[in-house]
């Protein structure tokens, strides 16, 4: 028989494959820590409305700026609202907005990048120069403009963030496409007469998917920071919606005597960003697109 099947490399179905990737990610301490943090935040975001001990918008002059105690674990803020309640609910807002934002960024950035990489020539030139032009605009200024014109609802924020964070993905997707475009299987599909759409769908996407997903995961953590910056500046979600950026901004002036109201959202935000970053790294390694290979000794 002509086959010498290595038993460890049997065909697996998609679910098993995903599980395998998760297992590889968790096999290193950094990946395990990242996954745990992200999982913790996601679960918290899902259950927070049910476990929140207080109403997030209940203002009470009696409980202003109370230090952490048994009733108020993380203390209260300047309006007497429970910081613990607002922190766990704040994660919910941040995660939802940025998750859907990254999804939009991935979709338009990835598809446009693949398309440009495939067709090349004039179209590619023009599109890429436009993308470059957008990259040169400070995104926060542009965001301020959009938000002040259209308002600060999540319906505006998600696509706007998605748009601005997708530009970088265009470049990555285009570069990844360039890597596979010269391969003979694409030439072969072209020679057979497949349409561009069919080539993108069947031949390119399966081969660039991993690189784009990893880039998307990295963008997610950046977007989280960007979203919080917007809120901090007062252009994110509007009060009284609980949000980390907003909470930090409100409590900033009181930091010297009521530090608790600023520490909780900071820890929440930075742990989530670190968690996503670690996960994205582990994800890249598990998929085998880690570029930091050692030179042979």
């Amino acid at each position: 028989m002509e086959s010498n099947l290595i038993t460890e490399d049997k065909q697996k179905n998609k679910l098993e494959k995903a599980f395998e990737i998760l297992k590889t990610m968790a096999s290193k301490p950094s990946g395990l820590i990242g996954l745990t943090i992200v999982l913790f935040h996601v679960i918290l975001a899902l259950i927070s409305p049910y476990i929140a001990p207080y109403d997030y918008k209940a203002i009470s002059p009696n409980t202003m700026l109370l230090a952490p105690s048994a009733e108020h674990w993380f203390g209260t803020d300047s309006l007497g609202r429970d910081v613990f309640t607002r922190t766990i609910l704040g994660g919910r807002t941040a995660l939802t907005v940025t998750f859907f934002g990254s999804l939009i960024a991935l979709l338009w950035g990835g598809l446009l990048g693949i398309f440009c990489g495939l067709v090349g020539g004039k179209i590619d030139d023009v599109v890429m120069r436009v993308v470059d032009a957008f990259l040169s605009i400070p995104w926060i200024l542009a965001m301020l403009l959009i938000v002040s014109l259209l308002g600060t609802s999540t319906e505006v924020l998600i696509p706007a963030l998605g748009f601005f964070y997708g530009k970088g993905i265009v470049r990555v997707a285009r570069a990844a496409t360039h890597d596979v475009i010269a391969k003979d299987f694409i030439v072969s599909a072209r020679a057979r007469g497949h349409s561009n759409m069919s080539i993108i769908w069947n031949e390119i996407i399966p081969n660039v998917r991993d690189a784009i997903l990893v880039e998307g995961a990295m963008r997610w953590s950046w977007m989280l920071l960007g979203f919080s910056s917007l809120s901090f500046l007062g252009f994110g979600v509007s009060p009284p919606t609980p949000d980390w950026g907003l909470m930090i901004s409100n409590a900033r002036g009181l930091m010297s005597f009521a530090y608790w109201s600023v520490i909780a959202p900071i820890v929440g935000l930075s742990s989530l960003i670190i968690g996503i970053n670690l996960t994205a790294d582990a994800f890249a390694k598990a998929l085998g697109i880690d570029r930091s290979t050692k030179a042979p000794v």
Partner: protein
Amino acid sequence: MSEIIESVKNLSIGFNSQKGKQISILRNVSTNIKKGETVGIVGESGSGKSTLALAMMGYIKQGLFPLKGECLFKSEDLLKMSSRQLEKIRGRKIAMIPQNAGQALTPNLKIGYQIDEALRLHTDLNKTERDKKISELLNKVRLPSPETMAFRYPHELSGGQQQRVAVAMALAGKPDLLLLDEPTTGLDVTTQAHVLELLRFIAKDTGTSMIYVSHDLGAIAQVSDRIVVMYAGEIVLEGPARKILKEPIHPYTYGLLKSIPKLSLAGLPASMPGSQPQPGSINEGCSFYDRCNLATDHCKKNTPDLEHIKELNTNVRCFNHNELINQNNNLQTSITKKSNNSEAIEVLKLKDVSISYAKQKFFDQLLNKISDQNPTVKDINIDIKKGETIALVGESGSGKSTILKSIAGLLKTKDGQIKFENDRILSSNLKMRNPNDLRAIQLIFQNPDESLNPNHTVEQILSQPLKLYFNLSGEELKKNIIDLLKKVRLGEFYMSRYPRQLSGGEKQRVAVARAFAAKPDIILCDEVTSALDVSVQAAVLNLLQQLKEDLGTTYVFVSHDLAVVRAISDRVAVLYQGRLCEIGPSQNVYKFPSHPYTEVLLGAVLEPDPDIKPKLVAEDIVEEKPPEKGCSFQGRCPRKIGDICNLEVPPWQIGENGNAIRCHINIDELASLQQ
């Protein structure tokens, strides 16, 4: 008995699998290298030959480790040395010449500086002495004008010249042992013959021992005194070169030699069934058991030892080697092809085809014309008959693949027409061709690793053309895929496999199946066997021939390997710098008189026979561009007659045996010159 400089004793090298099992890549290898001797290590990919060679200089790839045994260089074990100690030996005592010199040289340092670096590290010469030594070394490896060569960058040299620089660097430390890892693979045939000739000269001149690792028995035959044949991590046969090549007494070597196509033989070489076992999969018995036609039950249960046969001075690992001693006289046989069943109908006509890679100027772009006066490919006129196999032969840069691409519609032609079936002109723009024409012409690529989508299963790969051209789906699609797999002798269970789970030969079979899925009239084969091992190559060639005989497909077969072309083709077209030199029935092209370029190519072919030495008639200069005027081969022609060659394009002459030659020398005169 001369002094032994390196001896490998019972060496096993392996790795730990994911499941914690110890898997060995080299198993119990022992051999000795004597002073001044050239040892050829030959085997197919995965046989462990490179691992063995690298271990001989104390290097073991990451992830591998020695399980037992030792590598004694002048009675010191290299595998136990510290990296400090190894530094003193590598370069000074043992030097290595890599496979791809173009990648081994630093691209932004001048040649002279890189050789100087080797001299600084490995000798105690001062600056002026070193400078003298550099030009001495460059001279020794026969590079033109050594003084100016030292100031060039690697990219300014041709592949063969880069390889020579690598040889010069290796010689800088005056090593006792030179290690060559496939040093001529990837070079053009004429260049390869020249480099081998140089290596042979250096071995004789300096008395350096050499270890020559290659998969190519032809190259090994030219340089080696002794040959070691590796199979599945073991030495299966070891002995004097002549004995091994002429009277192989191991069935693997015998099969390997039989599967190499030879110039002197028409017809396809016999193929060896099966493929090499994966490391770790052999538990008991002979590792060659599955593929051996002499195998008995005894071989299945018992592992043969390396047995020394005194009268032949050979070591062999086979129980039944005596049977082969008597069988050897029929080494020179081949499978005869069914005679050319090509009908007289012309299916594809290339008429005055020119192809240019030059960038269009803006103005020309508007007028949609290409104004290149000296295109890469020019004046190609070939009529291809239905059912024949026509081969395009030439070295790299001869335009053979370019022509193939423009037939497939992947490259625009500058001038001329490609006519398909009843003189219908095929558009040179892929998008303008009708789907039926696209279906009728299919391509098979050189490297199946690149031509199969790594993220698709075999089923998905084969369903692409079936869905596109025949709109098949569901059960019918599946049935067709199974039929296709059967056609290329693969089982149904291959459907769910990914390309990475297949061997090189299996991948190429899938690529062949994909091409045949379209039920094409013409298949364009672009160097389809050059990425495969010889035994697999023979199998793929046989498969292609079989399919052609069954289905009446026409092949346009591009190759640089004249012996392969001889085996498969009915007609041969020889190209140089994008111009046709000679065209004719293949058995006649290989006979004289022929075009001087064909003569050069034929002379450079390496046969796995130590008695057939290549004839080096022309210099191995590399020409960047075709000449503007005159004969395309004027720059290198050994039979150039004068100005007429530089000025006028030679006329076609038809020889008595039916092959057309484009040369200024009268054909009868050419015949007498070449006798």
